[in-house]
């Protein structure tokens, strides 16, 4: 142990001597969390994208269509364009003919056309057209989802109009009126309100009965949302102040840590090149001493860097670290140990520092992607979701989430820490085995 501590102190003197390395140790996590935070908008308390350009052409005179456009304009994810700017700076409404050339000119990648026959006389249903340039899969899915959400929340009214028009065609105006009246009476009986007003709303196809059906919420509560009532309850993380940053910080931290600690393990190559192993190994130092001291150094370094990272996250993005400090440091320690062991294994199997760096970059990026540091695991294929659980990134992130997001207790954290410890032990055992056979000490 004395030998390991001496070697460990050597590594610390080294980094203390090297002012550049020392400042990088602290500055890199700071810069990193700042940049990542800005990229992902970690300061916002709500999530999702904003300001995606969306061209909207409204050729329909239907008031409900104008309402849909307004609803799209109100959606903060979109920046709705309805005007075409001529070369003399005058504006005119966009037409469908403008859209395709403009999309080719990359003015926008999504457009919604509300045609004149939005509600057709001849068939039931609505007619809408979405033009897209699906350059980015995730973005496209996201936009389509948002468009559908906005359209469907405005659809009842339009569907009502379509329904009324069809009914009039098939059963005749007088019979429809009779039907509508009995509907109105039924609605009034069950939900309250004035049957006359409900009747006139239904006649106009306005199923948005909120105003006519007497209710405390007034016009904002629409009829459909009363028929299908969905209650939403956020069970976990409700009290988290900075959800965006809190959710993603673990992933950033892991990736950063893996790179930092792999580099530190690769410093074994540097010591080899300096011929230092000859001197060390001809003294009472063994290979295992060297490796364990490097391991401990990696864990300490990783721990310090993670703590810096989280403290910076606290001040920059309000991630609440202070409530869980003890457990957070614990998870940081286990995560750092797992990352260090990974770095050691990498050094053990690589013939040269260049190989270690190349292999490391590849493995780290793969592991981060599979482990869920980049995007949610739930969107990956099922096989990947299983593979994910084999990565130390997954379990470290799980640990961070448990502490920061779910307020886990030490008991709840134990299985995750146990898995991280087991991974560390297995990786270190393999690394030691490889080191004892490898060329590093030759």
């Amino acid at each position, binding site marked *: 142990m004395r030998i390991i501590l001496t070697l460990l102190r050597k590594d610390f003197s080294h980094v203390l*001597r090297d002012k550049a390395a020392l400042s990088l140790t602290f500055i890199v996590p700071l810069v990193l969390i700042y940049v990542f935070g800005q990229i992902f908008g970690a300061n916002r308390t709500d999530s999702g994208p904003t300001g995606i350009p969306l061209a909207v052409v409204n050729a329909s005179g239907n008031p409900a269509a104008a309402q849909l456009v307004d609803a799209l304009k109100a959606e903060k994810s979109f920046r709705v364009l309805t005007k075409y700017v001529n070369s003399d700076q005058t504006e005119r409404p966009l037409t469908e003919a403008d859209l395709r050339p403009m999309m080719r000119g990359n003015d926008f990648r999504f457009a919604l056309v509300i045609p004149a026959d939005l509600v057709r006389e001849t068939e039931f249903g609505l007619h809408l057209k979405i033009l897209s340039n699906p350059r980015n899969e995730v973005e496209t899915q996201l936009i389509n989802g948002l468009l559908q959400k906005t359209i469907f929340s405005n659809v009842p009214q339009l569907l009502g109009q379509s329904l009324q028009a069809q009914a009039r065609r098939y059963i005749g105006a007088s019979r429809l009126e009779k039907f509508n009246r009995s509907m109105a009476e039924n609605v009034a009986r069950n939900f309250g309100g004035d049957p006359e007003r409900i009747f006139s709303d239904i006649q106009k196809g306005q199923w948005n009965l909120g105003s006519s059906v007497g209710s405390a919420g007034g016009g904002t509560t629409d009829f459909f949302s009363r028929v299908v009532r969905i209650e939403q309850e956020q069970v976990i993380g409700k009290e988290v102040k900075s959800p965006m940053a809190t959710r993603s910080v673990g992933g950033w931290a892991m990736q950063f840590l893996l790179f930092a600690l792999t580099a530190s393990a690769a410093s074994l190559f540097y010591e080899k090149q*300096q011929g230092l192993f*000859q*001197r060390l190994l001809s003294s009472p130092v063994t290979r295992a001493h060297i490796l364990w001291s490097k391991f401990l150094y990696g864990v300490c370094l990783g721990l310090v860097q993670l703590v810096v990272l989280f403290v910076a996250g606290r001040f920059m993005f309000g991630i609440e670290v202070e409530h869980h400090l003890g457990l957070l440091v614990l998870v940081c320690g286990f995560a750092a140990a797992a990352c260090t062991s990974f770095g050691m294994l990498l050094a053990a199997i690589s013939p040269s520092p260049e190989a270690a760096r190349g292999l490391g970059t590849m493995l780290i990026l793969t592991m981060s992607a599979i482990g869920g540091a980049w995007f949610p695991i739930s969107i990956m294929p099922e096989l990947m979701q299983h593979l994910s659980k084999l990565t130390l990134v997954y379990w470290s992130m799980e640990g961070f989430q448990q502490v920061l997001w779910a307020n886990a207790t030490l008991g709840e954290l134990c299985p995750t820490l146990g898995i991280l410890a087991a991974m560390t032990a297995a990786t270190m055992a393999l690394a030691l085995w490889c080191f004892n056979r490898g060329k590093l000490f030759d």
Partner: protein
Amino acid sequence: MTMTSGEAIALALGSNRSLHWRNPTVTTVLMLTLDHLTKRYGTLTALDDISLTIKPGEFFGLLGPNGAGKSTLMSLVAGLRAPEAGRITLNGKPLSVAEASSRAGLGLVPQSVALYPELSADQNLRIFGELYGLHGTLLKTRIDEALVAVQLADRRHDQVKTFSGGMQRRLNLVAALLHRPKLLLCDEPTVGIDPQSRNAIFDFLEARAREGLTVIYSTHYMEEATRLCSRIAIIDHGRILALGTLDELLAQLPFEEEIRFPAREETLALAAQLPAWGEFITADGVHRFRPRADCKLSEFFALTESLGLPPRLFTSQRPTLEALFLHLTGRNLRE
């Protein structure tokens, strides 16, 4: 295996209970034995069936050209590598790579400078001292002594990477001596060191040797081997070609005198006749002639005069280790 009392005492060397090895009762004990050592790197045989015995207090020289196997031999003794065949015993105890404690009485000065360049001289020595269990004032005094000995006391707080090559080598040397090893392995420690510093190092090592340190010193400078070593092994291609004290080695040279002259057009006729008169070798554009014992030098010079060759072309020399190496291998030591 039975053990003599001397071996038993020697076995205890390095531990606190041990008698100092210079205790008269143990002077006959063999300290380090290499027993039929063979070391291969892939297909290359770097050491080929080497057997050696190095006695306590000896200043043992390994003299050989590049690639002879000197560093390989050092690394085996230092426990850095395991031999393919044969064994090494230190004080009768087998030396194994796995057993770190068996290396406590050993100091290695690696051929290349092995120091932490980012750290100061002081920090380096501190680390290496601590690895051997030194600490506190003892460590401090040892470091002070070491730095004074190699004239680096005023640079002690500077980073090693700011040192000149020679300064680094001097530090490299004393870093192996802090724990007062019983056996010091010096692998070409003076490469790149200026003559004054080199002499200082020699004085320093000789002083340590007088105090009882056993040294194995590898070099391809025969001057160093001649000055320092009480016994010398000449090795080449992983084999020991000759072994003994300087006098014993030189006695292997069949001639007291050697005459050299340049290999040129004008000396061709002379060169053609000389093989009949004694041993005649040509290397590096120089003819070397060692006349047989019954050959008279007067006859030789009569011949040169008759061929019209001026006396200044001829130099005669005392036999040297270099000459011995040439004699043994037909090559120069520093080819």
